[in-house]
């Protein structure tokens, strides 16, 4: 009996089926995250808005009422930045644990592992999108209204934010398999990043000597863009360009780290 030489190793799917399956993986894993959140509690949606809302109330009292930050519509100002921030913060804080939580799958099944991170970030993103009506509500209460620019601006910023958050999350998720301390460092990192990002203050208030910190922050232009869009219906193309530059940077770092390490995931997870 002859034994033919077999060139194909592990890849037998035709191209279109491969892409269909990849898409299905993303959809199914994202659905899983969302269903799991909503099945556990009747108040699933309320919770995903209540959390940033609570923080907005705290910051409103501390910075708006006690320290009297000179910003108009401070509650709206806070919400417009806090909602996108929570998408970022929730994803980044959960990131180091994403691969660890799926250890058995990674050890046994061959599939693109970054899909796990993609779907987690998407899941948090969908919650953010669902909370946009809350901002519209805040606007109406303040005698303002959403503008037509949202139709273009929201998708543009959604894509930029997805890329930035994915880039950071995949870096942390991959590195944490090799350096398990990263999980604790991440929580600190997110807290520091929160105060370095113009969320409770505006970038115009930052003194010149601290400007470099602002420019070095990959998420500052993103959060400022959201707020400009939500509050004034405006998008500065320069700032949006900076967002995409920052997206490109984080994505590059994340992809490099992931491609470098993913073949070893099953050995260390």
């Amino acid at each position, binding site marked *: 009996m002859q034994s033919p030489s077999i060139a194909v190793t592990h890849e037998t799917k035709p191209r279109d089926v491969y892409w*269909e399956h990849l898409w299905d993986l993303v959809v*199914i894993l994202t659905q899983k995250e969302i269903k799991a959140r909503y099945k556990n509690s009747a108040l699933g949606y309320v919770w995903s808005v209540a959390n940033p809302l609570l923080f907005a109330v705290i910051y409103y009292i501390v910075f708006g009422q006690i320290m009297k930050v000179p910003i108009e519509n401070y509650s709206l100002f806070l919400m417009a930045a806090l909602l996108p921030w929570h998408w970022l913060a929730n994803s980044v804080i959960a990131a180091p644990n994403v691969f660890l939580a799926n250890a058995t799958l990674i*050890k*046994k099944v061959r599939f693109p592992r970054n899909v796990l991170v993609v779907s987690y970030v998407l899941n948090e993103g969908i919650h953010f999108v669902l909370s946009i009506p809350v901002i519209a509500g805040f606007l109406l209460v303040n005698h303002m209204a959403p503008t037509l620019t949202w139709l273009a601006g929201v998708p543009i910023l959604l894509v930029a934010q997805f890329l930035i958050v994915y880039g950071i999350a995949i870096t942390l998720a991959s590195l944490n398999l*090799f350096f398990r301390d990263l999980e604790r460092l991440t929580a600190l990192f997110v807290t520091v990043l929160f105060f370095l990002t113009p969320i409770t203050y505006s970038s115009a208030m930052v003194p010149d000597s601290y400007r470099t910190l602002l420019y070095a922050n990959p998420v500052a232009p993103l959060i400022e863009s959201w707020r400009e869009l939500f509050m004034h219906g405006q998008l500065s193309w320069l700032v949006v360009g900076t967002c995409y530059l920052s997206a490109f940077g984080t994505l590059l770092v994340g992809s490099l780290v992931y491609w470098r390490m993913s073949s070893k995931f099953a*050995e260390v997870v």
Partner: protein
Amino acid sequence: MTAICFDHVSKWYPRYQSLSYGIKSSLLHLSETFRSLKRERVRVLEDVSFRIEKGETVGLIGPNGAGKSTSLALMAGVVEAETGKVVVAGRVSPLLELGAGFHFDLTGAENIVLHGVLLGLTRREVSSKMKAIIDFSELEACIHQPLRTYSSGMIARLGFAIASHLDPEILLIDEILSVGDLAFQLKCNAKIDEFKRQQVTMVLVSHAMDHVQRLCDRVIWLEKGRIVGEGAPSMIVAEYEKSAQLRHVESRPSAA
């Protein structure tokens, strides 16, 4: 036709554990860290060569740490060999251990889709097999209940029902056949016999020698990363059992 071929395969695992002690200590002693990464490597497989023909059922046996699961991981393509070549021709489906690839808050039906897609099917393929999977699992009555209400036997049924409907060409089975109640075990055995008739290649890792003897056409005995025996199940299993006996006797503290 060859389904799986290991050609002088060696596999080391670095001791990443030394890194996991902490980022601080490994950064402070960076050169030492790299040296230890190179030095402290654990050999899991050394120069292993074998061929598994299409339609064969092969058992991998050996003591803990012999490299059986690593061999399966190489076949599944989740780890890469350091030297040598692993060639696998055909769609590989691993049979996962209890509960892996499931989510306990989702219903049985939702989990079928989740598990099926994770194991390589598209959603369309899963929905076309949905009914057959549910029928096989005999869980129609509670298929729309969340998985956390299932007993472990029921979860095992669901897992086996999905895996057996993946149309696998190569099925990797790691120690999980003794699941479910007696009637379901008989059903599993019947399904495995059906796979054999359909020329599905199966690789089985097990410590249950009666399983190995009953199912396998051939047995490969691994010890400390090397093949020490290969051949007919009855012969190799007998030898392996003898060596395990011997080891047991030797490890007992001698009274004399």
